[in-house]
């Protein structure tokens, strides 16, 4: 099979790449660009660890082919903070002790980010529903849910997305 040329923007930086037609966005991010903050837990769409944002929506990068996102802007966990300031979601996860092993955390935060993009004031139920596409084996979800609700409140106050 022949490689295809694509250009993608990751966290504000454009990359020109020649990719195999079967290469996933997850592999491109991790193996080619060294953005290992996006995790792989199953590589088949079941765990949510690989969640990133494209056009403000949460997508599973393990189920997305790199060629499908040609010309797109991708936001990963590494691009969320502003300078040394963590994003309110990141800050809330730390403060609420929502992080244990942390392997699920980037996926959870990126999923929550997409939720808050279109619903700045979600109910606990809505947060739980969204978070149900992220598996976490450590926390029992209680604290991540709290963290997301807290971040939502703070972001509403700051009107920051």
């Amino acid at each position: 099979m022949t490689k295809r040329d694509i250009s993608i923007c990751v966290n504000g930086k454009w990359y020109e790449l020649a990719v195999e037609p079967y290469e996933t966005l997850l592999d491109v991010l991790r193996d080619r660009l060294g953005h290992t903050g996006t995790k792989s837990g199953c590589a088949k769409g079941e765990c949510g660890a690989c969640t990133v944002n494209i056009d403000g929506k949460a997508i599973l990068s393990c189920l997305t082919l790199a060629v499908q996102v040609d010309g797109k802007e991708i936001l990963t966990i590494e691009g969320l903070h502003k300078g040394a300031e963590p994003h309110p979601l990141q800050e809330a996860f730390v403060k609420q002790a929502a992080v244990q092993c942390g392997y699920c955390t980037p996926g959870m935060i990126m999923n929550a980010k997409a939720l808050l993009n279109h619903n700045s004031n979600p109910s606990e139920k809505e947060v739980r529903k969204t978070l149900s596409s992220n598996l976490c084996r450590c926390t029992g979800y209680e604290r991540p849910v709290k963290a997301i609700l807290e971040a939502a409140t703070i972001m509403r106050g700051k009107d920051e997305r």
Partner: protein
Amino acid sequence: MKDRLSVVGKSVRRIDALDKVTGRAKYCIDLKVDDMLHAKLLRSPYPHARVTKIDTTRAENHPRIRAIATIDEVPRVVGYWWNLRTEKAMKRMYLQDNVVRFRGDPVLGVAADDEESAQEALSLIDVEYEELPALFDPIEAMKEDHLKIHEGGNIAIHVAKKFGDVDQGFKQADYVFENRFVTSKQKHASIEPIGTAIADYGRSGRLTVYTSTQLPHWSRIYLAGALGLPVNRVRVIKPYTGGAFGGRCGLIHGLEVMCCFLSRKAGRPVKMSFSREEDFEATEARHPFIIELKTGVTKDGILTANSIKLILDVGGYGTHYIGVLADALSTGVGLYRCPNVTFEGYCVYTNKSLNGAFRGYGNPQMNFAQESQMDMIAEKLAMDPVEFRVKNYRGLGEIDPVFDVPIRSDGMKDCLAKGAKKFGWNKKRTRKVDEGTKRRGVGMSCLQHGTGARFGLPDPASAIVMLNADGSANLLTAAADDGQGNRTVLAQIAAEELGIPLEQISVSDTDTDVAPLDGGTHGSRQTYCGGLAVKRAAADAKMALLRFASQHLNVEEKSLEIKDGVVYDVKDRSTNIRVGDLMRKVQIEDLSRCEQIIGYASGVAPAMPPTFGAHFAEVEVDMETGEVYVVKLVGAFDVGRAINPANVEGQIIGGEAMGIGYALTEGLIIDNGKIVNNNFTDYRILRACDVPQIDAIIVESNEPTGPFGAKGIGEATMVGTAAAIANAIYDAIGVRMKELCITQEKILEAIDRGARASGV
């Protein structure tokens, strides 16, 4: 004492959380080493076979293949640190032969320039097998004399213990209860799949291995033995780990040793990562148990005799089975006062994927049986299950017959009382709400779980505390943090003992070249065993520091204290010096001295204190569909003292959630040796929408041997969840569920059975 503490007892932020939320934390799977190769395993398609021929010629001609290592040369590690005690036992730990013992057992490994080439190479290798009959059922395997999975036979070990006189005990009983329980093969399912390592066998004969192990130092010794290297030449580095729960409590079958052999052959670093399917199919899981329990009791609710018979399904290779059995023994015999007990356990090989350590070890299995049985007895005696437990559990000052040590801290009654209150036990028990086809029920269980592994196993912990010229400190510890947060807890303990702010403590990487001997992260031991070592090391450093301070301030050592980084005279606070100023003088300014203060401790903890706990569960069962919904769960645990309450709560809630899975959905299904549910769609762990309200209650009994009174927590949290849920299901539907996991189908069948039995 409590208010005098500055950082112990506070829910401080984790020292690693910011790295994790920003995606900067590197897990083993994220690591790259210059010039590294990628490896893949060829796994057996048969559950039991002899490999008769391996032809690698075609693969060797592949231009991107750099090394192949086969079953003919690579040993498996089939033991645990119990085997390290003697040279003879250590030899038994390495098994190298040409038999494969479960579907997915590695036959060979290939290292290539890239993963695709390694994968390709596997199809170029021809392996001939002589298929052998397979044994899947442990009871059959026990009886079988001819077909042996291992040379010594199919029974890996048989243990029999006796306390008192059971025959006499059963004679004294007014009632005798006899039941058989079966438990499932639960998988750790950490979100970072088990099975990534990088081995770098350097040209100078020094081996560096990156692996997410719970046991950096024991793994180092295992690897040295497997490779025939002196221990000093092996370096194990444990990066961030995406959850372990026992699944990484040793070397991974087919992983690190294989990478080392491939690296040695290729002369280049080798990385291998198992897929999620490989994790499910070919790494350790929880031992399934068959438990036969016979209990005698008087009408006043006094236990007179207990006969316990266990069969453990070990799988194709044994690692932790002896310890797992011992843990079941300590629950079966230790939790309740009963003068007459017989205990018999068989660990049996079968041709299925191997079983090993898993949160709770053998305790969740045994507890499920025991606490179900206790529930049946309480019902028969018309006693409140909580009262029945209070009456019988072994508490403060009593001697645990298994480990023969007194219980020095006992918060069981508080766990039961506070748990029951929070749950609304009395009200919920009497007032039942049934709606349409839905029935509600409540149940409870209690438990104990020992902290550490000092009885019967080597269990060292060590720490080094180095003070810097500005008064800050570096803590060197090899206590692996798999996500529990023990590195943060150890930093809190060091800060508290030294009297300096938490921010002035840095915790070392988990690296055997940097940090001294540690027995590993298991047995809920790091807060207690690791914490004691850190506290002693910090105290050692503090002593030297006070000696210098005494000279400098001209005040007796014993009237000096340190708080917030300042050494002061307790009689006159105005006589003081900042630790930083003092350290700068000692290390740098005083040219005749130039000395760094280094505190050090190494050794074994003085005890193995049990953590006590109680679970309360409310369930709703749909009588038509058999669906069970856990409505509410309360877990109350006596942790001695919570060094970091948020961490403790995190353990409790996470453990309870895992326990719900164990009760209701989690069990590997094996058909003809093949694991059918090898993915997260078919093997269901809880999702955010499935988790009920879980209340965590922390009870502090102050363990006198513990650091600031602390004992363990991690494992206890899920030990009794399944029993509490099973008891609640009984309360709801009137039929006893004796087999885990309690699936919808089993419930429907049970409802049917119940209806037939009552003639409806």
